[in-house]
């Protein structure tokens, strides 16, 4: 499986949208403030539907909110 790192721009997008609070964003996409905080800190990866909802709230494409970067494969590891 390809390992990767999921990052997001939720915090900066919130501030660009009238300093929207985590609670306000959570209410609009149907999750708690704590879940938004966990998403922002990268400790929780949202479902695809929640991710689309976040993008919809900010009016931007999904890729402007969430980014996924593949980790470099370990060059020392060899598979037969």
């Amino acid at each position: 499986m390809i390992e990767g790192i999921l990052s997001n721009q939720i915090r900066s997008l919130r501030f660009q949208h009238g300093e929207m609070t985590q609670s306000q964003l959570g209410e609009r996409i149907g999750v708690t403030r704590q879940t938004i905080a966990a998403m922002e800190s990268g400790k929780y990866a949202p479902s695809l539907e929640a991710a689309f909802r976040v993008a919809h709230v900010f009016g931007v494409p999904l890729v402007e909110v969430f980014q996924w970067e593949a980790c470099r494969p370990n060059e020392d590891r060899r598979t037969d």
Partner: protein
Amino acid sequence: MPYREKVAWLSLTAMMVTFGPYFVAVAISPPGDELPNIQQLRALAVAALSQLVLLGAGYLYLRRTSRGESKLPDERDQAISRRSIRYAYGVLTVGMIVVGCVMPFSSGGWTIVNAALLMIVLAEVVHYGAVVLGYRRYA
């Protein structure tokens, strides 16, 4: 702290402070295997009722202090719940195999009753413990 994490802490605490002393007492002075054993039944009833009272009072307190917080689980709550139930199910399955399929060949009466209760309590502790850890890890 999310509402559901508070509920998990409450359930975990109530379980530990009621059934913890019950099982310590059972380990120190194991009950006889005769049935019914009114003294043992009374001890079990005290533990169960104490847990009920603690949970009731705790829920009322949480309801009062958590006004405005969503009580419905969101997707992260559900993911944490699913994971914790999976762990608890494993513990309960192993426990029930031991109690129901192994212990009857060597024990009986209250030994089996208390072993079954212990496995249920262990499964619940694992369940709520995993919920708490889940919130700590994904918070």
